[in-house]
């Protein structure tokens, strides 16, 4: 390491000044904040009737003003429903389902990963074997089959995804926790007879926090994609719910006449996914900077 390029002191995961120290993270948070404001704002501004269709203005292009004077900024769908309002109305479905799922994923994945890292012998073997096996199975196939049995709707969908997708997280957590468990401060705690759960929660978990944050952001994006995929296949959110996947699915029949029906929900999905990926990248960059600063 040449002394010529000494690293700047590492920024913490906090808003110390304006910005977080990572361009990606800033950008991602701004985009995501817009999404969240839209999510919250809809209860204040979106009337249930806004989601209703008006068959006289079916498949109208963007910037269309209906005969009753309603202005449709991004056009309408096959039932004359305003696409902008539908995208807003889809927020609780698309983000809500994947949001609940990502919390399950983080909690279960961390828990199982820690179990695998702490125990040796048969418990670890079973955890590793099970995780390796489950990871290989295409996630969408499993989700598809389970959702078909447990049914559609917000909770069945989000919990199904949460209970299936944790495997990749637990594998990463397992590997990192094994590394942390060999640290001297952990050995010292063990020698002092500290309870294993105290060690895991107070000594190991804080060290895993950056990893969990990064993985949660990326998995939020992945789960959002999967949720939309399931809805797209007609097996996700209830058929009349304004989920983004449902909207995409509807648009397939009208690609020739009304391509905006596809582009509007597609834009919503892509924006959400990119902002979450930006956040994940930003967290990863910050924790790298931090690790480097500690090393030096």
């Amino acid at each position, binding site marked *: 390491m*040449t002394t010529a390029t*000494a690293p700047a002191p590492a920024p913490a995961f906090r808003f110390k000044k304006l910005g977080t120290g990572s361009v990606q993270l800033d950008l991602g948070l701004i985009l995501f904040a817009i999404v969240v404001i839209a999510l919250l704002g809809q209860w204040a501004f979106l009337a249930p009737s806004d989601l209703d269709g008006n068959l006289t203005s079916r498949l109208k292009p963007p910037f269309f003003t209906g005969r009753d004077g309603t202005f449709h900024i991004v056009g309408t769908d096959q039932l004359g429903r305003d696409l902008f309002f539908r995208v807003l109305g889809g927020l609780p479905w698309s983000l809500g389902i994947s949001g609940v799922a990502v919390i399950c994923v983080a909690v279960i994945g961390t828990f199982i990963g820690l179990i695998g890292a702490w125990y040796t012998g048969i418990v670890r073997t079973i955890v590793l074997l099970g995780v390796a096996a489950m990871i290989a199975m295409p996630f969408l196939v499993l989700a598809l089959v389970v959702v078909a049995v447990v049914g559609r709707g917000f909770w069945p969908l989000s919990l199904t995804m949460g209970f299936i997708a944790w495997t990749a997280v637990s594998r990463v957590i397992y590997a990192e926790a094994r590394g942390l468990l060999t640290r001297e401060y952990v050995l010292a705690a063990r020698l002092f007879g500290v309870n294993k759960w105290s060690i895991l929660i107070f000594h190991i978990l804080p060290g895993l926090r950056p990893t969990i944050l990064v993985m949660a952001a990326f998995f939020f994006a992945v789960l959002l994609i999967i949720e939309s995929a399931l809805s797209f296949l007609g097996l996700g959110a209830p058929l009349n719910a304004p989920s983004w996947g449902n909207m995409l699915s509807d648009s397939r029949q009208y690609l020739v006449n009304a391509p905006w029906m596809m582009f509007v929900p597609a834009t919503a999905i892509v924006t959400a996914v990119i902002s979450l990926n930006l956040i994940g990248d930003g967290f990863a960059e910050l924790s790298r900077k931090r690790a480097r600063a500690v090393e030096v």
Partner: protein
Amino acid sequence: MSVATEHEHLGTGKSDAKAGETILDVNDLVVEFPRPGQPTNFRAVNGVSFELRQGETLGLVGESGSGKSMTALSLLGIVPAPGKIIEGSINLRGRRIDNLPVNELRKVRGNDIGMVFQDPMTGLNPVRSVGSQLIESVMRHQNVGKKEAVEIAYHALDDVGIPSPRERLEAFPHELSGGLRQRVMIALALINHPEVIIADEATTALDATIQAQILDLFRSRLSKATMILITHDMGVAAEICDRIQVMYAGRIVESGTIEEVLTSPRHPYTVGLLSAVPKFDIRRPKLVPIPGQPPTAEDIVRGCPFAPRCRFAEADCDNRPPLEIQNGRLLACWHPRHASEQ
């Protein structure tokens, strides 16, 4: 020419130069790195000049960050980006090499100047066999076919004392011990019979016993080679070098033959370095560390860079001392020590 005669020449250069002839001539070399967010650049190497003569071993000695490795890398034109050579010239047998186009420069690297790096653990590509890395270099610089290149590689390994070299050609770096890997690195540096060999802390990362073996190899195989040995260890330098140049903060501060420097160091920094070397000698006073730290890339140095750590610094040390001959010794100091004052 036959391979067998060739390997006896290993490390003694291509041309039949006479002893004492100047091989490498470095003049006022300056290497700069941009300092992020600051207008002035950091000078890792700051006006270094020296000559290397046929058959001599020159030691570049100094603490880490003193610019000795950067000097070596700039001789090959491989200063890591964003660093750059911005002043000075490097002449190899009278041919200027620092401003060659990259294509020409690549013919110098490994062919005219061979380099042994510090860490044999990371210096070899882990996923390619030892043989393939040697053969790649041979076929790049010598006009030989694959079969001949294999033979050359075999002899190169044999010559640096690697047992069963035939099998070792197939081995991957992780299958060899640290000492063997460093021998491979040396074989790689010598394989194209360079005129100049640079060994950059070639023994630092090794265990003490292995270090002794590698130094043995240097002494037995490379005693007649034209070599630059870079080290922070005065002990290592004392064992191998003919001449020593002490570097501090990108400059040469003292230069002389090994006897001169070891027996009567003049620069306070050299004195400090020597008193920091452990010796099995009860009459000697205890180890004396040099207080403080060398200037870093952030520090902007005026005057003598060693002055803040120097016991003998006075007011005039605020001016930079020139490197000039004082009492027969090349020295950059306003208040040089004499043997009696140590």
